[in-house]
């Protein structure tokens, strides 16, 4: 005799199982009422681990003083975009968050960030004022505090310069000449021309140095189609074909560091991270016992025929307006931005993390090693990536989509003519800016 399946008992089983899982989940955490006040901070891993340790120390010290439980979560910078998007989507997560690279997050997440006008006002006078405060205001408000930047000097191999009878480069034309001679010896110049932050930085620096820009001061007019852009692109084509290896179009942010530390590149345009890791790992010049770090020097970011300008990753910090602890978060920011805490934090970072505060650009750490001597100088000529236009969600998108590197690469590699590449870049930028205007 066959029996009908007992559907009821199966459902009862499933119900019991579901209830069991629910109970287990519920028992895993304490009731909300019993939980102490907690402030959480999401940040990105610094290349100098001591920086994170110092931040954690300050955070815990502040937490102990204020009887607040604190939690510092550190992720790789490449993970930050995903994490931010998820937190905004669910309107929950951390109270404080790192933002960037770039100030554009303030515009992208304008409706989700708490106003920090009061904190910015409190912090500035104690630290000699903000470097360029107008740059950091988004739609007239402080939606984030610019936190730190890694300025981009030019790292050069002094032994190779000596070998080819050259001095450290001061202009982009010098870089081209040195790169050509270096390439002939198997030591080319190296800068990414692909989808990487370094490519954005270096190519924008060259564009400005030749007098070009991609958006006007009004933040609306696309200005990329100009004779200055043409001059910059012609220069980069020569740099690519005569002074670099073709692999640079596939480089990521770490590639130029590797190239310098492997003893291959004669020069790279990069923060001091490559030098610091070469020093730590005691990497030697191939075929010798000479440490690479001892034959690296850092000089000013090069100037072009018109200007000397650079940009970098503008790392910022903000407070989500869906946080339940906005006042506590602001209080911690005031604490962290106190001069003594900033001093210790910059010291821990060996100067890699330069704050956007005037007095800290004169920190003693920049005199502690001759390699750091030009960092404050580079910071003085460092502008936001949208310069001379304001930082907007559209400018952030131009950065995030690597429009500038793609435009330069398409001409440099011969995929497009000069006019085609500029027309392509112009169209992309116009669509991005028009799209953002429609959303507002």
């Amino acid at each position: 005799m066959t029996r009908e399946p007992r559907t009821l008992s199966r459902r009862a089983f499933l119900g019991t199982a579901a209830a069991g899982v629910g109970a287990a989940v519920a028992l895993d955490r304490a009731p909300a009422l019993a939980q102490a006040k907690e402030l959480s901070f999401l940040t990105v891993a610094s290349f100098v681990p001591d920086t994170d340790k110092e931040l954690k120390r300050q955070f815990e010290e502040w937490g102990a003083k204020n009887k607040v439980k604190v939690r510092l979560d550190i992720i790789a910078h490449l993970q930050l975009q995903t994490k931010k998007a998820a937190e905004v989507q669910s309107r929950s997560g951390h109270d404080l968050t790192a933002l960037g690279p770039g100030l554009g997050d303030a515009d992208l997440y304008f409706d989700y960030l708490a106003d920090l006008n009061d904190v910015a006002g409190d912090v500035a006078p104690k630290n000699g004022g903000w470097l360029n405060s107008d740059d950091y205001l988004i739609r007239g408000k402080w939606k984030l505090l610019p936190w730190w930047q890694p300025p981009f000097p030019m790292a050069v191999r002094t032994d190779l310069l000596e070998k080819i009878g050259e001095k450290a480069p001061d202009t982009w034309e010098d870089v081209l000449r040195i790169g050509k001679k270096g390439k002939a010896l198997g030591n080319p110049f190296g800068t990414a021309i692909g989808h990487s932050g370094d490519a954005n930085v270096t190519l924008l620096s060259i564009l400005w140095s030749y007098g070009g820009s991609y958006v006007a001061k009004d933040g609306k007019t696309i200005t990329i189609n100009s004779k200055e852009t043409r001059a910059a692109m012609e220069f980069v084509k020569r740099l690519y074909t005569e002074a670099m290896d073709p692999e640079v179009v596939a480089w990521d942010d770490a590639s130029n560091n590797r190239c310098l530390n492997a003893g291959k590149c004669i020069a790279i345009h990069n923060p001091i991270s490559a030098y610091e890791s070469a020093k730590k790992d005691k990497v030697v010049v191939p075929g010798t016992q000479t440490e690479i770090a001892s034959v690296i020097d850092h000089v000013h970011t090069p100037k072009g025929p018109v200007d000397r300008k650079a940009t970098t990753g503008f790392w910022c910090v903000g407070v989500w307006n869906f946080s339940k602890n906005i006042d506590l978060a602001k209080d911690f920011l005031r604490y962290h931005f106190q001069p003594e805490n900033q001093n210790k934090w910059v010291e821990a970072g060996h100067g890699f993390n330069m704050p956007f505060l005037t007095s800290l650009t004169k920190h003693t750490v920049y005199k502690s090693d001759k390699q750091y001597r030009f960092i404050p100088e580079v910071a003085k000529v460092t502008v936001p990536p949208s310069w001379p236009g304001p930082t907007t969600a559209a400018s952030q998108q131009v950065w995030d989509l690597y429009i500038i590197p793609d435009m330069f690469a398409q001409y440099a590699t011969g995929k497009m003519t000069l006019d085609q590449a500029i027309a392509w870049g112009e169209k992309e930028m116009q669509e991005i800016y028009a799209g953002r205007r429609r959303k507002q």
Partner: protein
Amino acid sequence: MSRRGRAWRSVFTLYLPVAPFVFFALFPLYFMVVTSLKTNAELYDPTTVPFLIKRGVTFGHYQLLSNDTLFWSWFINSLLVSVGATVISVILGILAAYPLARLKFFGGDSFGVAIFITYLVPPSLLFLPLTTVVNRLGLSDSLWSLIVTYPTFLVPFCTWLLMGYFRTVPREIEECAMLDGCNRVQTLVRILLPVAVPGVICAALFAFTLSWNEFLYALVFVSPAELKTMTVGVFSELIRGDIYYWGGLMAGACIGSLPIVIAYVFFLDYYVSGLTAGAVK
């Protein structure tokens, strides 16, 4: 043919033809191991052969993982999450696959296809709405958030695979059991499942592998360092700005491969028969 002749024959008909595929499959693993045992100075040196260790073996990268990171906590977390999600998913998969494979009811076929389509929805689309769900359930920043969400992509896969396997088991065996007095649940547990062990193990292996390798949900739903899984923890700690700790990353990848390798070594036969079930009827 003599024994020696057979051996030579198998060299040419079996081992040599297979060798390129074995090389292709094992090369990444070999490169990982070699890189994890090289000094940083050698890793950076372009004049050395990247596939060989010339300047001595170092265990420094493994020490870095063990001493300077929470690697072993991440390893345990990955294990807990993968085992938990796999057990839940296989049980649910069995319960879903059985009626879809055996019972005839309105919409059964469409339901089966719908489950398959669910499997095709990429996690990169699902993580944003799932974040809201996880937060509302109060599960964020706990391993439960992963144990509960991983089945969203594991259950459809297990169900689909087990449906195919269950269909290869002769229906008559179950009918005999029912004649002897078993109900549906008893038939499933006492008759079908013992016969379908290869299929279940295959589903479990796949589910475990997918959970073990998962990155996106683990990144988004869990933030505290001590609760991270291995995939996220290693990435977070060993990529610092434009400095990649290649030796440490490869050491993490080597250790991370071990549970999967061990699982497949033990259950390879089941795995193959589970996958190929239904190929020949």
